[in-house]
């Protein structure tokens, strides 16, 4: 039973969303403030966090950064008003995996939660594929879902991990942003391509890629991204 930590300041929204998620079979803990949410992180040990960006007191962005500082791999889903474009970009750069636009129907939120949990759970193991792929100083354990560079483990959020797995599964192949949105985020073709760009940025930073000339995840202008294996 997935455990969802919901951080939302408005009582009605909090109760409505919690009710809907519980009925979908989730175990829900609801927090009213960011501080409370961070507190519950330790006690509740959630599988996924649904975080409202507009919070009184400690802002949603700060909560997001605080959570990432504690746990690099925790799936975080932002709830935001459409058009708060700056917030979305900053939130994604702060480490959120995905976002939903309020008002959101329960089944849409539920689908996003399932998708981000699937990302964290990893791909079903396929026979014939070696467990650990090595590209230069980068090693990717596809079954164990861990990544190491020069032997040092790199802690990745679910989206980052799934993005790297998807790209590196076909080295040299160019993926368009739309393809990656569908493959990694299970969004529609017309989803927000900034998810991809922000995630690539985070992934490159975590892998210690030089910003001007990335070694592994390369931009193909006008088309998208590719994984360079050499």
């Amino acid at each position, binding site marked *: 039973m997935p455990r969802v930590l919901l951080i939302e300041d*408005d009582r009605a929204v909090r109760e409505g969303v919690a*009710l*809907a998620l519980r009925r979908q079979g989730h175990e829900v803990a609801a927090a009213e403030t960011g501080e409370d949410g961070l507190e519950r992180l330790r006690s509740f040990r959630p599988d996924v966090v649904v975080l409202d960006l507009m919070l009184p007191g400690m802002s949603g962005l700060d909560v997001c950064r605080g959570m990432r500082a504690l746990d690099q791999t925790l799936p975080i889903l932002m709830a935001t008003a*459409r058009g708060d474009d700056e917030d979305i970009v900053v939130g994604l750069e702060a480490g959120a995996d995905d976002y939903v636009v309020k008002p959101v129907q329960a089944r849409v*939120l539920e689908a996003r939660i399932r998708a981000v949990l699937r990302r964290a759970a990893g791909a079903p193991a396929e026979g014939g594929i070696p467990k650990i792929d090595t590209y230069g100083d980068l090693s990717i354990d596809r079954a164990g879902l861990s990544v190491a560079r020069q032997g040092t483990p790199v802690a990745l959020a679910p989206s980052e991990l799934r993005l790297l797995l998807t790209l590196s599964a076909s080295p040299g192949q160019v993926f*368009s*942003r739309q393809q990656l949105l569908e493959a990694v985020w299970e969004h529609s*073709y*017309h989803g927000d391509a*900034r998810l991809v760009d922000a995630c690539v940025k985070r992934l490159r930073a975590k892998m210690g890629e030089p910003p001007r000339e990335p070694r592994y995840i390369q931009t193909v202008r006008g088309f998208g991204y590719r994984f360079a294996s050499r």
Partner: protein
Amino acid sequence: MTGSARRSSGGSLRARVRVPQLRGLRVRLVVAFTLVAVLTAASTGALTFREARTGVLQQSQDAVIKLLRAQVGKLAPELDFPPGESELRRFAVDVAGGEPSGIWRVLVDYGDLSVTSAPDDPFEELTPALRSAVDTSPATVFQRVNSGDHTALVVGMSVAYAPSEAGTVTSGIQVFLAVPQTNERAYVDALVAAVERATVAALALAVLLALLAARGVLRPVRALRRATRSIAEGRLDTRLAVDGSDELADLSHTFNETAAALEESVAELRGMEARARRFAADVSHELRTPLAAMSAVTDVLDEDADRLDADTATAVRLISEETVKLARLVDDLMEISRFDAGAAVLHLDEIDLAESLRRTLAARAWTDLVEADLPPPDALRGRVDPRRLDVVVANLVGNALRHGARPVRLRLYEDEKPGAERLAVIEVLDSGPGIPDSVLPHVFERFYKSDAARTRTEGSGLGLAITTENVRVHGGTVRAANRPEGGAVFTVRLPLRRDELSDEGRP
């Protein structure tokens, strides 16, 4: 978008200004000043010349007549009467000798005798008119005679003896004097030359003054023209520097006041509009939080409605459905508010447009309802905002499916116009009755409903308005029209922007 149109009209404006420069203020001022100068110089010169000439001639002839009279008065009493030819000749020579420089020529008549001071002088200057005047008048008579280049003064008088008891008695002797007027002529010639020189100088001065005056007038006029154009181009803070206190300074002052008033009222209007828009945005924003709570539980209502009694179930389903519609309406309102506030941002990505359109249809299960006529994969790529393109196509196709009749067709092709910007053209055609002519100009207006009853349809009433804004923010256009063969057609033209460099996705 209107910027380019304004620029081109500005170009034609400039061309229009250049042509009538020949009839411009500067030329007109120079011509007027020159005319006035010429007229003044000519009339002043002519009057001066006339007066001076008359004065000079009068004075010289008065002197001549006075001298002649004195000479005759002195010499005549000494003359024997009746005189002989030799006596008359001596008399003539003596009279002529009265003028020391010796330019006098004298003719003396007495009866049939006629002698001249110079021997064999034909004395051609003497006219019959003068002779008859001397015959009839006791006074001294004179005439100015022009013969060829020469002008001569001819004076005639009868010699009278001192008054006797029978009144003045004429002696029958007539004296004629011819004096060449070379000095006087030289005088007059010099006068003409002086007037001519003065006229040329006055003319040059007039042209110079005209140019200076034109500059003085034209500089503020040019400044005014520049400022007016600047205002027309939307720079309402344009002001003129006012110097001096003439009519042009007054005009500049008035211009500044007008511009200030215009700027103020435009600012006021903009402020009012901004407040109205902010209000709409605020209202939508405030509605969103309660709607977020309601939207979260509509699924719960839907699931449990079956277990309720019929009336309650109907009420619950109604609330659920309308909540979903309300959420969509508020979402559309928020979207429109962002366009109004200029806060709509394009997230451009280079994509295969045909693929995007195909996906739009597939995501809404319209693939079987719409005949798609799309180019092959990767034949038409462009930099667009994929989400906004999806909204545009979905709104237009959805509109056609709701209001037009099937078959609905979706076409995509590149507008190949040599030299022009590359455009993608998206057409949505339906086979319905078309759009009434009275409705056609309004289809893209917000909340416009073609029938007076304002029946609610599936859409929020903002779909086509949002479509227009989404196309516009791409720099494209959207038009609605009726096809001659029936049915409506919506045409979107989008610039492809393939050459532009992207900021997104940089390493």
